[in-house]
């Protein structure tokens, strides 16, 4: 098989496996039923039976209360708001990801639940309201107390630790979506021909391939 054939074989072979190759996206939806779409959404196709069972159990559980979930949604949108480049954490459904991941990784559960409660208590003391019911201005005031690890007051340290985790989960949850890939400019994960670092980039860093490399390495230079 040459490369063109192998890419063709790949596209055909993955119709049922459900990759997001643009070429087979719509066809994919037509050919597989709702059940297959469901199992794909749950990430359970081509898994061992033990994995399928485990993923199903996690999907069926609910960890955060509605109040906690709403608070996470507000915080996530403060951490990743819409800007000129891309949408917000809500647009990327980051809260849903956090709900799943704390079930999958129980070591995040108490730091998240306890951290949210810590935050609400701080806000009750300051503003007589839980965080989510505070005004936007009050929310930002509060967040500013815990968002900067090196200048936060010592008594805010638990909040800093919580916000670090919240920031990390939000950033990871956002940038592992289609919106996030486009935001950061990730353009891989598709069939292509690697022909080395683009010439203008080599030039930018004052690098060049050696004669030996140009002779020995696989080349897709146009003749």
């Amino acid at each position, binding site marked *: *098989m040459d490369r063109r054939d*192998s*890419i063709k074989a790949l596209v055909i072979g993955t119709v049922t496996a459900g990759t997001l190759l643009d070429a087979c996206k719509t066809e994919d939806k037509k050919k597989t039923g709702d059940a297959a779409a469901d199992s794909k959404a749950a990430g359970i196709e081509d898994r061992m039976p033990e994995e399928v069972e485990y993923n199903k159990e996690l999907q069926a559980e609910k960890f955060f209360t509605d109040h906690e979930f709403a608070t996470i949604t507000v915080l996530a949108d403060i951490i990743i708001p819409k800007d000129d*480049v891309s949408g917000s954490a809500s647009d990327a459904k980051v809260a849903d990801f956090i709900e799943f991941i704390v079930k999958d990784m129980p070591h995040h559960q108490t730091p998240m639940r306890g951290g949210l409660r810590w935050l609400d208590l701080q806000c009750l003391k300051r503003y007589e309201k839980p965080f989510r019911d505070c005004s936007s201005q009050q929310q930002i005031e509060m967040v500013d107390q815990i968002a900067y690890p090196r200048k936060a007051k010592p008594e805010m340290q638990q909040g800093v630790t919580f916000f670090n985790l919240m*920031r990390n989960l939000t950033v990871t949850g956002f940038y*592992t979506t289609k919106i996030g890939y486009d935001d950061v400019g990730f353009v*891989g994960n598709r069939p292509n021909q690697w022909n080395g670092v683009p010439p203008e980039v080599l030039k930018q860093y004052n690098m060049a391939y050696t004669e030996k490399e140009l002779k020995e390495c*696989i080349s897709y230079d146009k003749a």
Partner: protein
Amino acid sequence: MGELQIKKQSKKYDAVVVGSGAGGGMAAYVLAKAGLKVCLLEAGPMFDPAKHSSQLKNAWESPRRGASTKFRPFGDFDGSFWGWQIDGEPFTTTQGTQWDWWRARMLGGRTNHWGRISLRFGPNDFKRKSIDGLGEDWPISYEDIKPYYDNVDKLIGVFGTNEGLYNDPDGFFLPPPRPRLHELFIKKAGQQAGIPVIPSRLSILTKAINNERGSCFYCSQCGRSCKVYADFSSSSVLVIPALKTGNLDLVTNAMAREVLTNNEGLATGVSYVDKTDLQEYQVSGKVVILGASTCETARLLLNSKSQRHPNGLANSSNAVGKYLHDSTGAGMGGFVPTLFNRKRYNEDGVGGMHVYTPWWLDNKKLDFPRGYHIEYGGGMEMPMYGFSWGIESMNGDYAVNGVKKEAGGYGKSLKEDVRFFYGAHVGMAGRGEAVARIDNYCEIDPDVVDKYGIPVLRFNVKHSDYEIKQAKHMKETFREILHNMGAVITWGDKDDEKNMWGLNPPGNIIHEAGTVRMGADSKTSPLNKWAQAYDCKNLFCVDGSVFTSQADKNITWTILALSMRTSEHIVDELKKQNI
């Protein structure tokens, strides 16, 4: 399990092979192609990369965004079923020791998992005792195995370059891919330090070699297994083609229990439990070939006790389970500030590094006896779980687009930081040779069985001064390379003698070998130079267990070459009716 009985297969095979990884897969392939009737037992389910690979999935197609689970410790898209633990299949360690044991349960075994790094051992690697007085020489030399390396190169395919290095021999290479940007930085930094950085040698097809397998389309995901068979997995390259001969019967979900022997002490077949119906089965053959993995093969032999083999099969030397040694490992990494805010393009390349560093020094001038090679990583990789984790420890130290900011933060400014730092990280890891020692071993735990009632292994392995000093040297090398690149080190730089210079625990590098070693003396080694048991002439081993010693190289290519050599010998001997 009301009516437990043993079901004996009536068919008599020429050979029964246990394990479908690199060693077992190659044996099944060679024998089936030669027209022999072969039965292959695999403890896990069927796996065909063309149908079952997670290749080209995006992070969001996993609910955990590609994070690991106990089922897939190297991430939700990794090709390998199971890993550091298997439910219902425990193992133990003696007090004060640690052993990490990777077990894959699926067609192709651990070839679904590995980095496709395909390095020949060199002439020195077979004669280490003659060079430094430690361990034992192999009963074969490089010249004995060279023709098989050549044939493995041609049959399976590997890219690389002929560099004329004595102990990193030339081969039949496909063209390698050009280095990535950070790899050019590494190469330059290595040159400044006198450290060679040359094209890597990976079993990935940059050009098609036959009509059954495609060529690489550069998604960098060999670890997920390849839908067009453009890299080496035992399933796609060996077992599935062997099945097409009609001479191979594959039994999946078959957990081998014992090698069966007769009154003369010869092997007659293998007993196994079928994991799907939990019934006991026996399959018989003229020859039994073990490729269950270094430690599972030793376990199988030690569990195969009989009147003729009271100590376990092929174990009159008492060496089965001994001399267990893994590659050493240590790493370091950080980021390269000159790569901040870099231009975006598809940098995926092949699955793994495009350049590496073979061992370049003379151990006679150093305070440790064996060498290591260096593997490299970095660049604009696919965002997965953990992406940009810990940005609060980075974004306060470097001006982002010219503006120095307070560490941490949120909002539009944080999004700017993520974009700015993306693709600037670089990492490296040493993989070195440990010395095979009699006091590093696995044995049968007298108290513990798995859920099938099979006695399990207990490990007793420790690093020695040889490995610890080597790790110290690795760290010094990494620091020099990173310094020369202008990199800021963020991990792996805080190790010292108290934590053995950050050495990975034994077993963690997943290159273990040596438990059923080949040797010239039957009193100290279970296998002769054909990997044939001294005590049982129709029993052969074809996995990492047969290694007399490691090298500063990954062992898969040598497993394949040795298995091919042993398997061709078996074909000859069966023809001559010697076995």
